[in-house]
């Protein structure tokens, strides 16, 4: 197989993901409206109630709206990753996943394409959100927007890989509601997206510890530091580690000998 053949397959998956995203206008609006409600409504209410000290990467006092923007970016990517998961479960139920899985390329590569395509789609949403946030006066330096890009790719890949792994474990579309309850909400609320970990520690050491080890926290922190042209090496390493782990589990989950086909044994 030539590199061109691999590229062509990636292009196919990316194009399909993009087309599906464009056709599902409701998904695009939901992806933007959800964080905007948090930014405009929720943050306005919490601004007065929540005092923020100066913590890295911030050099001065910031408003609560500024603080939660990286968390909301993470939220966009988290939902996008779970949307990819939902799309895989849908594809499996509708049969269209068979077309992908019977392509004569390594299955691990095809799954990587799917994860990468989802990450690219999430970038459109993130930058659209940042553009709207700028209209509300929440801006970063031009270099910050650029520096965040590779980090957003990494965090998008990690969240996509987690979503894809979950899809290999979800047997039916109806079970997806469980993912919302048991993955998205805990991942988001038990993180540094809405409040710094030190703030959480004032209430509960246990919850603060959970926040500190939550991969989503590290995705948010990596994005936060990148927007201010700083590196968060520990967070980046952890995000990369989770990406590799979730990617590996996904490949196992979709292995014909061990994955969905064995559990979803079709009637002969």
């Amino acid at each position, binding site marked *: 197989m030539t590199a061109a053949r691999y590229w062509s397959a990636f292009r*196919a998956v990316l194009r399909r993901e993009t087309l599906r995203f464009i056709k599902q206008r409701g998904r695009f609006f939901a992806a933007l409206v959800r964080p905007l409600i948090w930014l405009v409504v929720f943050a306005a209410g919490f601004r007065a109630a929540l005092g923020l000290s100066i913590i890295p990467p911030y050099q001065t006092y910031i408003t609560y709206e500024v603080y939660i923007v990286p968390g909301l970016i993470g939220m966009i990517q988290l939902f996008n990753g779970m949307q990819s998961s939902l799309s895989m479960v849908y594809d499996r139920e509708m049969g269209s996943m068979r077309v992908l899985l019977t392509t004569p390329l390594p299955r691990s590569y095809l799954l990587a394409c799917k994860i990468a395509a989802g990450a690219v789609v999430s970038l459109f949403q993130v930058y659209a959100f940042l553009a709207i946030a700028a209209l509300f006066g929440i801006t970063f330096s031009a270099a910050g927007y650029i520096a965040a890009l590779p980090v957003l790719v990494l965090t998008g890949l990690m969240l996509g890989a987690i979503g894809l792994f979950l899809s290999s474990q979800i047997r039916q579309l109806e079970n997806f509601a469980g993912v919302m309850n048991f993955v998205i909400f805990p991942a988001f609320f038990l993180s540094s997206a809405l409040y710094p970990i030190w703030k959480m520690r004032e209430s509960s050491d246990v919850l603060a510890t959970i926040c500190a080890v939550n991969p989503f926290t590290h995705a948010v922190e990596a994005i936060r530091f990148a927007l201010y042209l700083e590196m968060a090496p520990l967070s980046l390493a952890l995000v990369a580690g989770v990406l590799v782990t979730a990617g590996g589990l996904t490949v196992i989950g979709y292995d014909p000998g061990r994955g969905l086909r064995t559990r979803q044994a079709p009637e*002969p």
Partner: protein
Amino acid sequence: MSGPADMTDAALRLANISHDYGRRRALDGVGFSVPPGRVTVLLGPNGAGKTTLFGLISRLLPLRQGDITIAGHSLKAAGAAALEPLGIVFQQPTLDLDLTVRQNLTYFADLRGLSRPVANERIVGGLQRFGLAERANDAVRELNGGHRRRVEIVRATLHEPAILILDEPTVGLDIPTRQAIVADLHARAASGTAVLWATHLIDEVWADDRLVVLDRGGVKAQGDVAGVLESSGADSVAEAFARLTMAGESEAA
């Protein structure tokens, strides 16, 4: 994947295939070959093991016992690369309903590494062959079942596969549509393609087809239609099918 392909003898060869779902045996020592240039009909009642066999050939199910050779290459040894010469139409619809016909076909063409000019030419040609050229920009959701099936056949042949396998592609379609699809598959076989076609619809078998009768996970008979009729002492495919399979036993009961 390298080395010469053993295409003159059998395009697709299954040897001693067995498969279990838990403690239930779905296939038991199945073996047959599919020659190029002919339609091989895999005839069996519901539950005979046809879909399991297709799952194994297409690597959607793990091949644990026996081996499958596709164009001279062992599926066990070559892995996904062995699927290269294969065109597949699944029993379950597999088109993306939200995309247009052209987008679905382009998606597949890209997955198969076809250049855009070649893909476009074959997409147009394939759709014209089935009288669907004007539907290219329609969402698949807007097509009826027969048209969707035809699009799936166009898709499965875009990369001009040496072997075409179809799992009950005509189930649920009206008679003219079924006849058109059956005729098209025979035309493709006449031009050299090896066609393996699973069905339980006896009237779709042509006199010059090769026949493999599968029932309860085992091959009950195989060979030319005339040979199967002779060995089973039947005057028609329907009679042979009834004598050789569970369907016949239930009728007798």
